């Protein structure tokens, strides 16, 4: 079993122009910082990125937007980010906005081999345009398809050499769902331990879903809205 790679550069080396990639995280929380840097360095272009958000101007997916590497964003909430807005308005960037729960469920569906799911979100709104509607028990649902992505890139707190992952607090968010959904799943972790050191009862993502893993470095973990009390 050879899942360990040296670093982010090695992990993303075969991601080609035009790939569809999922990136875990909610806002800047739990994003795969090392892999994003490696993708920026690699300069791969025309990416379709499935990610709940698009980062800020100088962090997260915002860094890839600065380099014009992204052709299309599939997200639930974007635009904390001036460059994003500029590219969108100029037509350089395509955006597909999806309700957050639908986004999450379409990831899960891929990981669970379910080709499509029914969800309430968006019925009667412009999100429903062109979509199949079906009624169950008097409620109307939209048929939404599982995502099909070449790579999923996630960030975990701890991982082991078999690819088992544990996430921390709300940095979990989309990460375990996307981990299940990638044809190739890359996990960067804060702490990589030998198989046997994680409690099998506490694993969030079983290693079967993870193809490459490495211990990341220099996590900045930037905070978007620092709020404190006294």
């Amino acid at each position, binding site marked *: 079993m050879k899942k360990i790679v040296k670093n982010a550069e090695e992990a993303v080396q075969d991601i080609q122009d035009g790939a569809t990639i999922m990136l875990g995280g909610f806002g*800047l929380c739990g994003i795969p910082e090392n892999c994003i840097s490696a993708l920026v360095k690699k300069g791969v272009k025309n990416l379709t990125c499935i990610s709940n958000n698009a980062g800020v101007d100088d962090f997260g997916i915002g860094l890839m937007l600065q380099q014009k590497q992204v052709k299309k964003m599939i997200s639930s909430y974007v635009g904390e980010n001036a460059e994003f807005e500029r590219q969108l308005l100029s037509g350089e960037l395509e955006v597909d906005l999806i309700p957050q729960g639908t986004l999450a469920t379409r990831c899960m569906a891929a990981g669970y081999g379910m080709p499509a799911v029914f969800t309430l979100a968006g019925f009667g709104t412009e999100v429903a345009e062109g979509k199949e509607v079906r009624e169950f028990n008097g409620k109307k649902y939209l048929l939404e398809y599982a995502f099909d992505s070449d790579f999923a890139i996630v960030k975990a707190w701890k991982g082991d050499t078999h690819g088992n992952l544990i996430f921390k607090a709300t940095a979990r968010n989309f990460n375990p769902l996307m981990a299940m959904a990638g044809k190739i799943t890359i996990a960067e972790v804060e702490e990589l331990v030998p198989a046997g050191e994680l409690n099998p009862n506490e694993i969030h993502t079983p290693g079967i879903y993870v193809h490459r893993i490495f211990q990341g470095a220099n996590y900045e973990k930037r905070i978007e*809205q620092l*709020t*404190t009390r006294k």
Partner: protein
Amino acid sequence: MLDKFGIAKRIARELQDGYYVNLGIGIPTLVANYIPAGIEVVLQSENGLLGMGPFPFADEVDADLINAGKQTITTVNGSAFFDSAMSFGMIRAGKVDLTVLGAMEVADNGDIANWKVPGKMVKGMGGAMDLVAAAKNIIVAMQHCDKAGNSKLLPKCTLPITGLGCVKKVVSDLGVFNITEQGFHLIERAPGISTEYIKEKTAGRLVISGNVPEMILD
């Protein structure tokens, strides 16, 4: 007239012991400050937490622990973390007892618009469409009128819809309204606000039956 704290305070009266509650960004967040004494309420944050606590002290801040508004927060005793699919799963399955959110417009049939203004940069619906489509009990916290004085309680939403027929109650700066088949049913007036004034400021169908009490806060 209620200020934003008054709106939050009034909504907090709707809470019951054991409720699981999702509070949206803005005024809804303030509701957490007015939870009545003696009842226990669990706050859901749709990015993956049940049991949201207050903001952290400076030395407690954890970048891995944020709410759906991306603010640093804390946990409480009995908190649980989960992924985004389970989070919206519990919302969709009706396990969340009450959802409080803001709105740009509410129609007298319960339609809500709160995610998009044509001509302005569209940031996305986030979890709003999931929440309004699936929550079993939705209260909207909002200003009754826009800055130009036009009613935001309408016969029909003019902005793109977030969800159809889902709002159960509106608490505005002018009063409390149940959404009924007949439209906005005024059940309480904000302090100092007359039914006449509310009539004038409400574009949607308004139901006023008998003497509507003025609310007493504190």
